[in-house]
């Protein structure tokens, strides 16, 4: 009789520490330097002591001169503290080649063919179920993988010629923005001479911040300040501004935050209570935090730094959604220009409201008139105004072709967060399930999505991981098993370190993560030795990153009914809907 169950130990949070070289003496040394010296260990619970966090969630990295610490555009899940030496933050984009980025290698024809024949017949089979002792034993290998072969910049003076950079000294922290906001690194950082850094994975950083007010305030201040100049420089109106004027703008810029950072916790209940009559939908819009109100006098320019905001226009007794703005987009440009030329405040033509969590910068009108408009040519002003005028009511560009009810639907359900949402055109879908079969064939006979989901007319957003702009599923993961791929940004689950706590599945606002019982290669269900319950693992779409064809679901659809799409890009959506 075949074995039906196999006993194993459920993985725990620190089975695989961030670095294996952290000895007790290293932790003692860390506790002697700031900011750890000022942290009160008594504020940490016995299950989560400060020493254990430092031992398991940090590692010490040594860099030689020119060693690249983080690259602009890469996704990161850790922050860095300069312990010794200096780190140089390069504020201008460097060439991909200089940064050592290699084109991705994909498997060839034969390898792709054979992988399908090796698929097990039973669901959720793991070829090898690693025990805790194995995970701990393999620690050094894991760490070696994490550390990777480092990339060095050659001929640094030439490479950094004509680029602006900032030097960070011991005690300073960087990389916290990407780690905490689940977003790409905004700058490249190099070692300036021999440098020693403490790398803190974000789960540890989060726990340290929760229990140390001073550290939390310090990190939040860095988070606010470090990326401000980068963001301003990336804003079209300010990109050509002389340095001294940009500095003046930066000094006067106001930081504003709307909504809750962990918005997903309240999203489910609020969306279910508001999904009903149109009257309730109006209440939902009104309940959203107001950033700027239609009809009020223009007081300055609003730049969206992270998150999403709803642009709406009063219609009848409600609010009609005109568009949504994401990172890098600006609001109120026409009004600030109008105010400047007419010498009197122009009323805002639309309202802007925060969706979930949104971080904005507000540049006051007076600052714009003093430092920006005198230094910007009329031609650039016209170009920028035209580029950002898509939400003007008289404009009929690509965004206007997305019908308002569809916009309302995408905003209400927060699908705008999806960078790789699965859209199904039900007018073309023959329900043949070729997409499901292709997905299963690619993932050991386990489909990683459900061809079902929210509908708007004949458009369906299926339950497949959307690889969100803000992947809130990552927030609560205790082990860091769910995270972004460093280069592609695809949200992936590292199966061996997933402890099956289902935090990610419960956090996902779209119900796109499934918890499954796993089997070993003989087909036996794996049972936890201590609880005698099956061990679960989180599973979801990985966008078939290892397939040469891209997502198998999309390439397997015979009728062009299924597409993976960035719903933050309304032009792309409009083109697909109106094809």
């Amino acid at each position, binding site marked *: 009789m075949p074995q039906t169950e196999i006993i194993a130990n459920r993985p725990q949070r620190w089975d695989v520490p961030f670095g294996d070289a952290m000895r007790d003496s290293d932790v003692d040394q860390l506790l002697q330097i700031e900011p750890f010296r000022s942290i009160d260990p008594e504020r940490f619970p016995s299950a989560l002591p400060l020493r254990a966090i430092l031992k398991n969630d940090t590692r010490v990295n040594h860099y030689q001169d020119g060693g690249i610490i983080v690259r602009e555009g890469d996704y990161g899940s850790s922050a860095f503290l300069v312990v010794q030496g200096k780190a140089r933050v390069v504020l201008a984009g460097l060439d991909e080649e200089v940064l050592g980025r290699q084109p991705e290698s994909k498997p060839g024809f034969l390898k792709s063919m054979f992988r399908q024949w090796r698929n097990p017949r039973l669901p959720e089979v793991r070829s090898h179920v690693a025990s805790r002792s194995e995970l701990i034993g393999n620690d050094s290998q894991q760490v070696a993988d994490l550390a990777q072969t480092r990339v060095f910049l050659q001929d640094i003076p030439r490479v950094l010629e004509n680029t602006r950079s900032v030097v960070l000294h011991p005690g300073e922290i960087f990389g916290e923005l990407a780690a905490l906001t689940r977003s790409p690194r905004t700058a490249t950082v190099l070692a300036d001479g021999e440098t020693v850094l403490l790398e803190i994975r974000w789960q540890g950083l989060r726990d340290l911040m929760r229990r140390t007010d001073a550290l939390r305030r310090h990190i939040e201040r860095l988070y606010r300040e470090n990326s401000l100049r980068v963001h301003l420089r990336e804003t079209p109106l300010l990109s050509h501004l002389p340095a001294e004027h940009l500095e003046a703008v930066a000094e006067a810029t106001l930081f504003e935050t709307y909504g809750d950072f962990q918005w997903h916790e309240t999203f489910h209940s609020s969306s279910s209570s508001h999904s009903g009559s149109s009257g309730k939908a109006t209440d939902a819009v009104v309940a959203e935090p107001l950033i700027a109100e239609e009809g009020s006098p223009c007081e300055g320019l609003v730049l969206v730094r992270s998150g999403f905001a709803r642009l709406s226009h009063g219609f009848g007794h409600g609010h009609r959604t005109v568009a949504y703005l994401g990172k890098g987009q600006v609001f109120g440009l026409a009004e600030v220009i109008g105010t400047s030329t007419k010498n009197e405040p122009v009323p805002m033509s639309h309202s802007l409201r925060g969706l979930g969590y949104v971080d904005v910068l507000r540049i006051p009108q007076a600052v714009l008139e003093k430092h920006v408009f005198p230094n910007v040519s009329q031609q650039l002003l016209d170009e920028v105004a035209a580029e950002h005028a898509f939400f003007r009511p008289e404009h009929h560009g690509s965004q206007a072709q997305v019908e308002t009810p569809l916009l309302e639907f995408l905003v209400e359900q927060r699908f705008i967060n999806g960078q790789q949402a699965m859209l199904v055109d039900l007018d073309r879908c023959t*329900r043949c399930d070729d997409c499901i079969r292709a997905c299963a*064939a690619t993932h050991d006979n386990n489909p990683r999505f459900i061809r*079902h989901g929210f509908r708007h007319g004949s458009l369906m957003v299926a339950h497949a991981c959307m690889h969100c702009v803000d992947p809130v599923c990552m927030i609560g993961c205790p082990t860091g098993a769910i995270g972004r791929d460093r280069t592609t940004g695809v949200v992936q689950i590292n199966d061996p370190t997933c402890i099956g706590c289902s935090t990610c599945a419960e956090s996902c606002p779209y119900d796109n993560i499934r918890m499954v019982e796993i089997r070993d290669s003989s087909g036996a269900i794996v049972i936890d030795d201590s609880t005698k319950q099956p061990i679960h693992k989180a599973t979801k779409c990985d966008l078939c990153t290892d397939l040469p064809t891209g997502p198998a679901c999309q390439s*397997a659809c015979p*009728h062009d009914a299924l597409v993976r799409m960035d719903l933050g890009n309304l032009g792309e959506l409009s083109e697909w809907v109106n094809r």
Partner: protein
Amino acid sequence: MFIRRRLYSVGLTLAVLALLVYWTYYQKSALGRVSFGTGYVLLAAIFFLALYNIHKKLPTLPWGSSSDWLQAHIYVALGTALVFGLHVDWRFPTGILDLTLATLYSATFLSGIVGLVWSRTIPARLARVSEEVIYERIPMLRSQLCDRAQEAVLETVRSSGSTTLGEFYSRRMHGFFERTRGLGYFLRPNNRLRRRLLAELTEVSRYLSPPEQVTCEQLFAMVRRRDDLDFHAAMQWRLKAWLFLHIGLTYPLLAVACLHGLLAHWFGGGLL
């Protein structure tokens, strides 16, 4: 996008076919034999068409998207009709083997045309139904609906003591909820039964007590939902069944076509 693609594909197909027609007339005018040439083109086209099913079975291979393959499949298949006509010289064959082959080809071609029409029209009809349903879950949903309807009626009978709705349910509606629709409905789905049941329910509602009226309203919704489920089941079954038939015809067609080619060479000579 689709219009541009269609124009391009139609143009390319017509160009290739025009070349083939020109070649056959040129050969005929030179007193040459065209049957081997057109036969090989037809056989190659059929092999190519059958390869699409292999493509579907190996979705991990980097050999083009399924959508591109389907487009090629459709236009090559449409083109084979002309090649077939040229091959048989526009006369339906009479011999047993040739007749079998021609019938198999015609059946496969026609099933493909029917499938193309269905796959372009049925999805939009399904999308108009309020609920999207996965085919494999329909029996479970039906069963749940049947249980809910029965439970609602029994509860009303228990709580109100009135049996009018209960009797009507057991006489007219229980069978509707419990049984699957017959083959006739699957072949030609319609809403006659739904309309009749809703009309009868409306008729009987004037004799119901207030608690029964409430349950009657629920039954209205349940009848509509059950009918929608049946419609999904019938339409999705149709979309799957034609493909099963189409693919099922392909393999005997390939086998008989190969045999036909072999025999043609054997007895007709002229191996290229």
